[in-house]
């Protein structure tokens, strides 16, 4: 005879362990975020769209045998005709390289679905625009909480003792009028006496900022270079959108001539031709003079190029950069030099690169960043905006 019991669910027993597991995954997302950033597919998406990102499962390590010809497994195939050497599964390309992550045994991936906005939250939490000064004509909105009246309900720390006591005394006086209450009797607080301070979010102006996105789209910028430049700007774009409610962005793309373009054009435009960095700088200077007076605007400049400037333009670029550096909070020159020779295209040797020319300008306000592969983008980005890696 057996016993039968109807199982009563007291609680969802694995809930604790699931949430702990989830935390670990979130941590893994944050750690491995640069792999996501360097993934081509997310560039050019808007913030609302959900993207699926593969996150490597949280592994439990054991001693296991390697997956190689010494490690024989056994299977059955009743009724099937089989012979020695028969291939039962072809490996995908890329599996061959045994050192590459992804070819290890028991590799587990979770697909985590998040929006770019949520991703931005993970990404940009600890980053800030450097040296944001308070200037005239405030435009950037920050948030601050201010007191705003009283409420009957609230959290304990916001209990206003004075108001509460006043209410109690008021009630006591009233009741003494209507009934002949004895002065000696205890008169306790009542729920209705309690008053809580109320606070409200107040938009507060902090500063106003304009950010110049300048990108070299000349012929020497190969597909992969442009991809890296765009990835960088894409990150920058979402960083600004996520962290600052009101910043203006000016998009400039240039060859030997510069043009102010729309956001869409900036991220998608294909071009070719020679390179005059100065053209963009000149346009930038013009726009600053017309629209963004340095007295009232925080100016940030980001310029992406592969550094193959035409030599006769170097001096002019140098002069302009020196002037622009004085006007801006941060001037960042991003040079893209793929380490893979196939992706370099026709290219100048290192000494003639623009970064070498710019080198004397380098200080806390003028940063020179070099990107050699998509994996560099995120760490460099964090460095610029004061993250810890």
């Amino acid at each position: 005879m057996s016993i039968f019991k109807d199982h009563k669910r007291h609680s969802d027993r694995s809930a604790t362990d699931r949430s702990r597991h989830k935390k670990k995954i979130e941590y893994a997302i944050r750690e491995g975020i640069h792999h996501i950033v360097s993934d081509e597919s997310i560039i050019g998406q808007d913030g609302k769209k959900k993207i699926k990102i593969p996150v490597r499962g949280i592994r439990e390590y054991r001693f296991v045998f390697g997956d190689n010809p010494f490690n024989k497994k056994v299977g059955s195939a009743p009724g099937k005709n089989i012979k020695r050497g028969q291939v039962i599964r072809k490996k995908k390309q890329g599996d061959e390289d045994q050192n590459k992550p992804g070819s290890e045994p028991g590799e587990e991936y979770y697909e985590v679905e998040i929006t770019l906005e949520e991703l931005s939250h993970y990404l940009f939490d600890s980053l800030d625009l450097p040296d944001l000064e308070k200037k005239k004509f405030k435009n950037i909105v920050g948030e601050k909480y201010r007191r705003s009246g009283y409420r009957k309900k609230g959290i304990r720390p916001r209990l206003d003792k004075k108001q509460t006591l006043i209410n109690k005394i008021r009630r006591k006086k009233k009741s003494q009028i209507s009934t002949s209450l004895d002065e000696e009797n205890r008169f306790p607080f009542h729920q209705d006496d309690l008053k809580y301070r109320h606070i409200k979010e107040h938009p507060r102006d902090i500063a106003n900022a304009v950010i110049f996105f300048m990108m070299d789209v000349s012929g020497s910028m190969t597909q992969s270079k442009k991809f890296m430049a765009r990835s960088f700007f894409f990150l920058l774009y979402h960083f600004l959108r996520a962290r600052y409610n009101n910043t203006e962005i000016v998009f400039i793309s240039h060859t030997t001539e510069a043009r102010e373009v729309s956001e869409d054009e900036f991220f998608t435009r294909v071009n070719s031709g020679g390179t005059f960095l100065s053209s963009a700088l000149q346009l930038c200077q013009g726009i600053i003079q017309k629209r963004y007076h340095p007295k009232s605007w925080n100016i940030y400049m980001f310029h992406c190029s592969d550094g193959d400037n035409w030599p006769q333009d170097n001096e002019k670029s140098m002069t302009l950069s020196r002037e622009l550096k004085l006007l801006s909070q941060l001037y960042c020159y991003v040079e893209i030099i793929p380490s893979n020779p196939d992706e370099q295209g026709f290219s100048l040797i290192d000494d003639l690169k623009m970064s070498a020319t710019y080198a004397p300008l380098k200080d806390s306000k003028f940063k020179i960043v070099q990107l050699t592969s998509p994996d560099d983008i995120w760490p460099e980005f964090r460095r610029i905006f004061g993250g810890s890696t």
Partner: protein
Amino acid sequence: MSDWNMNILTEWDEKICKVADKFGLDGFPISYEVCDYYDMIGNMSYHGMPTHYHHWSYGKAFERTHLLYNTGLTGLPYELIINSNPSLAYLMKENSLYLQILIMAHCMGHSDFFKNNRCFENTFPDTVVSKFRNAKKRVQKYIEDPSIGLDSVESVLDSARAIQFQINRYDQKRLSHAEIKSDYIERINNDAHGDYENFNLNKVPLEPDYDILAFIDEFGTHIEEWKKDLINIVREEALYFIPQIKTKILNEGWASFWHYKILHELDLPQEYHIPFLKSHNQVIRPHLGDINPYHLGFHLFKKIEENQGIEECFFTREIHDDVSAIRCLIDRKDCEELNLFSYSSKKKSVSIDEISDEDGWKKVKNDLINNIGMSSMPVVFIKELEHAGILVLEHEHDGRDLELSFAEEVVRHISNLWENEVRLFTIIEEDTWEI
């Protein structure tokens, strides 16, 4: 609506118990719990243990099964039963009556196996449930202790679980260092032939120690007590589950063998015959390119019954584990009939190495044994504790190389427990290798 209620289940259970009794099955009494699929996945994640300490990996197991179930990639197992007295088993609300009958009959086999198989002698089924409950309480206590906390507890558990099964697999009682030493002293004292003339009694351990967690417990005088307690919790759980790992094929085979027999003896309504046979065939069907333990086990017991009679079946379920059973009982005919083959991963593809013909079947059988139960896990033992407190481990190489990326992480885990340097020696592509 389901076609059963508790009373109907009780009626069928009585019949099943009667038939099982008549056949001579002698299991623990069974306590069934009826639950829905969500609770079933929950219970499965903890191997059916009604209480278990918290660890994130069980959350992972749950998510995995839940995802697979929801995407229809896998059905839930028909039965979940634990080795305890009484045996706890779970019945899923969503199943219809014929399936519940099948599962209850199946559980009869498992319970009998737990009670009578030699491997389970030291699993203490009377106290296991309270032991797990107790362990859970202790783990919880450490988590809530402000001087320890969740992160530290998790770090020790993660590391201990990494070497959970690096333990003596033959169910021998581990002797302490002092016991082994006194044994050697006796041998040296009675040494008539000079066998132990240059024997170094100061070496630690005197003999290779396969029980890494127990060694850390014994010699880690520098390790805090709460950590040792966690290490022992993990180790004892492994000791409890190893017999099940070692007898997966026989255990499932035995249960399938008996649900089939019992259901034939029951007066099943006509309309249940077809669904029953369908479910039975689904459970014991061979998996193409894989080994289905239900299938192989069922095949084995069927064969023994045909050739040697039912008594021999009972004998087999008592004395064998999977490795010994396959070694002794599988012959060329079986290999051919199941069309067993061995395969391995090459550079560009996975391909077949051996098939079950005259030249190949012995090799295939040998490879099969290497993949069963504990044999599928590498053997690593403690070779020496050096003077500086450095722990030296060695992998007992059997032709199969370790996966280095994993081994490195495990060594890191061991060193986390040992709180000192740990080295591992192994062989990779015929050269010694040190991690």
